[in-house]
């Protein structure tokens, strides 16, 4: 029998005191520095510019215009019929009209190359909740998910914290543009087995965060085949799919399944959200799309812990069913992001900095390894601190994304105005000039 240790004050759980939330990493520490001294175009021109937050603000005007012209989404019309039903609606199936609109929107983004059934859509309050929910459903405490590196720092928290599930990295490197290889998949699987973790699935982000690039069709097929061979799940987090600069370059796992007539599809689950493509992270809208009936049923029931406000569902159902709006938005958003990307790549090139060739996302993957004293994580963090404190830019170091090669940094470009981006690029230019002279 366990010896009871008397606690002087009432205790908290292991989850509450654990560090698995990962919020002590540099990824989050940089945000603190920004919060304390935020850049402002007129009132604080020497402040820290936030380039660590993947938020999309480039198409706000389109959203504002829509909301201004279509107030029926935010009110309930004359006499407010349907308000009562809306205010009472807490059905975890979600508003049918909203699910239908989401299914259509997801199809539109993929150029109609994949079909989505609204009854397979489970709604959650954000993709953060969707990823955690799927992990609860697919894996038991102590099991493992394989995730290609570099990956979004938030996964350490979202996939592991309350679920007790482990992440085993699939190591990727710059020799092939950080693409996943069959060898890397197998190595990760063996590594997990050797640590006695049961592997339950592979989780990929496509387009990738932080790489800012889509996964090639052949690689996707390899990953899918790998999952089938090992009889494990495949979760494809596609929240940046609408932020691909050219619509034809993004291949969704849904397309591949469709061409294979949905054979072996019950192991595949797609996560989507409106936080990046539509720039509405504050609305808290995420979805799980699963080809597995049991997963759909279970996820739906578990979504009781993370339902989307019925008022928000109603508003977005109106917005996303407006084909004219969504077509224009998707097209314009892509163009603007592409323009921003070109701007930052050019600016960085002028400063003598190379980036990974990207084609999607709200960020670019910058290579500063030539600047490192030595090719180590410590040297990368030293450089990161200098950039944060002297250049006053908050960018995300590759080590917080578990990148195995030191010296890479994720730089966000869509959460600011063009002027601010210019200022950031100037600062980088100046910094690089200073270093050259030294």
């Amino acid at each position: 029998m366990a010896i009871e240790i008397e606690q002087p004050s009432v205790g908290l759980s292991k989850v509450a005191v654990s560090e698995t939330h990962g919020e002590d990493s540099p990824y989050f520490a940089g945000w603190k520095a920004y919060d304390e001294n935020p850049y402002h175009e007129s009132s604080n021109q020497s402040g820290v510019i936030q380039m660590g937050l993947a938020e999309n603000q480039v198409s706000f005007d389109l959203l504002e215009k829509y909301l201004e012209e279509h107030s029926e989404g935010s009110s309930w019309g004359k006499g407010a019929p349907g308000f009562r039903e809306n205010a009472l609606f807490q059905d975890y199936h979600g508003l049918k009209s909203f699910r239908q609109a989401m299914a259509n929107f997801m199809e539109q983004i993929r150029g109609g190359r994949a079909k989505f059934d609204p009854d397979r859509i489970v709604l959650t309050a954000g993709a953060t909740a969707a990823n955690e929910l799927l992990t609860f459903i697919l894996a038991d405490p102590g099991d493992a998910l394989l995730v290609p590196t570099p990956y979004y720092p938030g996964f350490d928290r979202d996939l592991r914290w309350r679920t007790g599930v482990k992440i085993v990295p699939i190591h990727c490197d710059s020799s092939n543009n950080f693409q996943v290889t069959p060898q890397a998949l197998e190595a990760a699987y063996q590594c997990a087995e050797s640590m006695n973790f049961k592997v339950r699935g592979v989780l990929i982000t496509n387009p990738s965060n932080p790489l800012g690039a889509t996964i090639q069709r052949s690689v996707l097929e390899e990953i899918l085949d790998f999952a089938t061979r090992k009889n494990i799940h495949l979760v494809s987090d596609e929240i940046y799919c609408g932020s691909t600069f050219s619509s034809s370059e993004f291949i969704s796992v849904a397309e591949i399944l469709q061409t294979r007539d949905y054979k072996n599809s019950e192991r595949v689950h797609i996560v989507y959200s409106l936080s990046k493509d539509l720039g509405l992270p504050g609305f808290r809208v995420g979805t799980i799309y699963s080809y597995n009936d049991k997963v759909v049923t279970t996820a739906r029931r578990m979504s009781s812990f993370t339902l989307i406000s019925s008022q928000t569902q109603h508003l977005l159902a109106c917005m996303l069913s407006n084909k004219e709006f969504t077509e224009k938005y998707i097209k314009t958003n892509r163009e603007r992001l592409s323009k921003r990307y070109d701007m930052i790549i050019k600016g960085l090139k002028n400063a003598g900095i190379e980036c990974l060739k990207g084609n999607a996302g709200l960020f670019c993957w910058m290579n500063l390894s030539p600047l490192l004293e030595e090719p180590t994580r410590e040297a990368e963090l030293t450089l990161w601190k200098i950039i944060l404190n002297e250049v006053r830019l908050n960018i995300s170091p590759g080590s917080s994304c578990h990148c195995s090669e030191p010296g890479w940094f994720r730089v966000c470009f869509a959460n600011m105005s063009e002027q601010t981006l210019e200022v950031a690029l100037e600062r980088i230019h100046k910094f690089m000039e200073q270093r050259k002279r030294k």
Partner: protein
Amino acid sequence: MRLIVPLQGVVQGRGGLILGSLIPCALFYFLQLYLKRNRSPNSQSSPPSRSTSSSTLAEMTRTLSRGSIGPARISSRAISIAKPNDSPYYIGLDKASEDPYDRIGNPHGVIQLGLSENRLCFDLIKKWMLDNLSDSIMRKEGGDLSISGIATYQPIDGTMELKLAMAGFMSRVMGGAVSFEPSQMVLTAGATPAIETLCFCLADHGNAFLVPTPYYPGFDRDVKWRTGVELIPVHCRSTDNFILSITALDQAFNQTRKRGTKIRGILLSNPANPVGNLLSREMLHGLLDFAQEKNLHIISDEIFAGSMYGNEKFVSMAEVLDSENFDKDRVHIIYGLSKDLSLPGFRVGMIYSFNENVLAAARKLTRFSSISAPTQRILVSMLSDTRFTEEYIETNKKRIQNMRDLFVAGLKVLGIRCGESSAGLYCWADMSKLIPSYSEKGELELWDKLLNVAKINITPGSACHCIEPGWFRCCFTTLAQEDIPVVMERIRKVADTHASCS
């Protein structure tokens, strides 16, 4: 999992191939037999989940033989959740939503008395929305139209504006007897995640909370599903009007400790659900003393605080802590707008705690269940309109009281008495005279008859873990006054057939 390991041993050679395939088959057969026998007569689950338990079994037995590749499995946590709902609480809710009563459109439908929703004051909320929401949601108090205020990432535990507005509202709802600090609030998408998040913060997998019975059936889901925390019932009796006694609490505590399970706290609803009574100030003191003595947390779910009727006064845990010298670190309050403001669809709940460490952890955990920004904006407007909220709270009280009086009187005519209560959107009815046998089985038979013959959905006490059979929770705030005679008539028919049979 524990089943598979010894069986693998058999298959791997110690028992031979025959035993290896015979045992799983036998188990499968017996389990199916057991399930068939014990399945409630009314577990008409929706199509996708109907075959779940048998296909899950099939999956398990298939994977027992080496080298087989079945479909990708889901976790053990998920398997139990995927099973068809066998609680009468959920079955009844499903049935009522499939065939909902409508006075004109579907007069023979199922009357929903199993969902504690308040529809009595919608006209007030609707009017407020029409008068105040003509503007776009983007417009902030006299400012320019801008979406960035609601579109961008917000503080995950709720905006300060909403916390301030909630503090004011809660205080008003509780009669102004206590004030709430916005900095001690963590806002969540409904009270459901609030309770779960709090459990994740206070207890580890395998720990337990003591909970007085009868209790809200949803606690079994909110507390146990993903956290792995147990609920230990502390039975209350009708002789005490189902009010908790410290003696019973102590007994349950000791018994559970002997079993080796660590108890982390006490979970209670005050006002109580399903009984609807209040804890007196003395009782709250007693609970705090007990918690201090045994080093436990207290979670006080006060979500019905604004659904009072009658003359008794509600005393919040916060009020007691304010005035006395108790250790505040162990007290946590749950609140939300689903009951008191009739907006369950908007998903607004709260953890209110005096413990900085709990708040710090809970704050980080709410990223999995944050409130949608446009909804927060609307509510800030609504809750800050003190003229509206005062009128709402007053009118709500009167209408609940009125409805309750009519409903309870109707039941009285049928010889059914209700427990004493002063709050909630329901009454706790003693139908033990109508059940065929004084047992859970008898109670469920009556429940079944009421649901499928009389077509009213009420919640049987056994779904609430009540130790005395025959009690039912009837929510009357989803009704219109004209519907009450219909309900009574339907109950009377069942009561008559029972009388003629006995």
